[in-house]
């Protein structure tokens, strides 16, 4: 197995809201092996974006890393001084934002914004940076003639490509992509994902792909980390997750999205209910209230993330019965009964 580039252990991140803390990420652990795309999937508010941003250590004013470690290439990102962290930003860890429109500064030409990073952070000279900008645009499939355009002159897809070009500018070790295709239509989504996949293979990049869309995960990610209400509930390679999920939430997620690969049954089954309030999380398993298989044990005792099968981590009391539960989970009626 490939060397581990990033190893997150027991990471907790809290937002201070009024006098209370909202623990958005609570004791999360997972690894990113060198040269793989790891999907971070879950619904809105599950803490996936918070976690992604924590890797850059640029987090909201009211957020703080509340413990745990992010071992990246021999250094703990959570413990680095601001100065050392800043040296690492973009050179080693870059970021592809969800909304490329707002992430490009409207008053500067796209070329300037690429050159800015190459010069300020990469130490390149202007001519060198210009040439690199052309190269980057060619890499992501935009006509370098459009470099002199302003961001508003780009289409949504082009902006996203430009954001990818920007993220690759300094040959980072890790690219954190926060819902990079969510704002785009399906055709463009697929083009961008193909592009990203191609570049990742070509450059041997490690990528964390934050998404709420399990079809994106299925399409592009080597491994997948499923998050629910601030917790990692399942972590394994993507094929295993799709075919033999151990956590009922993963089973439910799969039912709730159309399959990009095959025609499927065409029936989508949503998971009823909504995630728990993170100001006052329930004491047992956080998914228990929505889980069709929840027992008293689930409602009272929080399951730990354990390695239930080789290289397959799950936090569920009934993981050993997963094979049976999977069959039951395929029936939409299983999910309809839950309130």
């Amino acid at each position, binding site marked *: 197995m490939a060397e581990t580039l990033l190893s997150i252990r027991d990471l907790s991140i809290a937002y201070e809201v009024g006098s209370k803390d909202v623990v958005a990420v609570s004791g999360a652990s997972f690894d990113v092996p060198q040269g793989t795309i790891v999907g971070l999937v879950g619904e809105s508010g599950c803490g996936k974006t918070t976690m992604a941003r924590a890797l*850059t250590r*640029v987090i909201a004013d009211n957020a703080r890393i509340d413990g745990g470690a992010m071992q990246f290439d021999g250094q703990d990102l959570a413990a680095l001084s601001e100065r050392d962290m*800043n*040296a*690492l*930003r*973009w*050179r080693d860890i*870059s*970021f592809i*934002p969800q*909304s490329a429109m*707002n*992430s*490009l*500064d*409207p*008053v500067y*030409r796209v070329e300037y914004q690429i050159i*800015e*990073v190459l010069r*300020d*952070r990469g130490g390149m000279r202007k001519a060198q940076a210009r040439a690199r900008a052309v190269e980057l645009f060619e890499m992501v499939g935009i006509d370098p003639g459009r470099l002199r355009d*302003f961001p*508003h*002159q780009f289409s949504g897809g082009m902006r996203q490509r430009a954001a990818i070009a920007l993220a690759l500018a300094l040959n980072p070790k890790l690219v954190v992509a926060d819902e990079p295709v969510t704002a785009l239509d399906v055709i463009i989504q697929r083009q961008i994902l193909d592009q990203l996949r191609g570049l990742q293979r070509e450059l041997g990049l490690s990528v964390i792909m934050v998404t709420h869309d399990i079809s994106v995960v299925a399409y592009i990610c080597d491994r997948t980390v499923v998050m629910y209400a601030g917790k990692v509930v399942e972590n394994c390679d993507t094929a295993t997750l799709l075919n033999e999920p151990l956590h009922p939430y993963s089973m439910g997620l799969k039912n709730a999205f159309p399959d990009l690969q095959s025609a499927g049954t065409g029936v989508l089954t949503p998971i009823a209910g909504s995630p728990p309030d993170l100001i006052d999380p329930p004491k047992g398993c956080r998914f228990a209230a929505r889980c069709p298989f929840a027992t008293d044990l689930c409602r009272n005792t929080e399951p730990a993330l354990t390695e239930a099968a080789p290289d397959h981590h799950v936090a569920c009391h009934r993981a050993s019965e997963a094979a049976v539960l999977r069959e039951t989970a395929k029936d939409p009626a299983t999910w309809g009964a839950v309130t």
Partner: protein
Amino acid sequence: MSTLKPFLIRTLQLLLVLWAVVTILFLMFRLMPGNPLAAYIDPTFTAEQQEALIRQFGLDKPLWQQYFTYLGNLLQGELGDSFRYRTPVAERILLLLPNTLILTFSSLIVAYTFGILAGAWLAWKRNSRFEAAALPAVLATRAMPEFWLGMVLLAIFSFSLGWFPAGGTRSAGTSYDSLWQLYTSANFLSHLFLPMMTLAIYSQGLPLLLMRSNMLDVMKEDFVTMAKIKGLSPSAVVIRHGARNALLPVMTSFAIAVGYQLQGNVVVESVFSWPGLGRELVNAVAASDYPLAQGAFLMIAIVVITMNLIADLLYTFLDPRISHA
């Protein structure tokens, strides 16, 4: 090509507005009570002489004919003669205009430079004790009437400390070879300082508060967050990306401020006996010197309208999203 067309449209709009101003001015002075010639005609003139004068000025003709005569004269730069000085109005106005422009623009440049920097700084110091003290202070300067502020400055720096002269543009008896030499002389600048500071202190509040609130908004934008994630230096984040974007609406306010400032000039020029258009306007109205007042009004209107045009064009230059709209 694409930049020329909006320019032409704006210029046409400017001419239209100017025509409207001219027309309103024409009607306004015709509607004023009293005979416009009352100040001009000597009471000892006989009735025939008076009528002859009225005919000579064309005041016996119908209003529309007078209006076209007036427009025709304007196009030739002919603003008539001042009743008081018996010299052409245009000449008088061109003599005073530079004083007003220098006062207006120097004070605005000081106000905007200070306001923009301090506003950005205050946004940076959000929720600090410094901010808590600075904001009320700014609001206080905004609330002070400018004539009062002018008199306070005069009392302190001129009458008590004697650092600056009390009025005028230069000391009596000084003369300069050219206007340029006059305007760059220490003597002129020391006369300029107090009225300039009065207007500057009065007008720095607008750019300051505007810049501060814009900065607070812009610093929450995604591209600013991205600049931080890129590891750019704090100055690049705050100035290159933050301030540069927050500046846009402040620049528009500059043009509007010129209009306000010319209004403020009327008061401040009077306080400091600054021989500018504003003071002239007040004197002309007081002396029923209609041609001069009309000319001064017109000139102020031209400056304001031109500044609006410049601001529009500047905005297209500063914000790439506008130029291609």
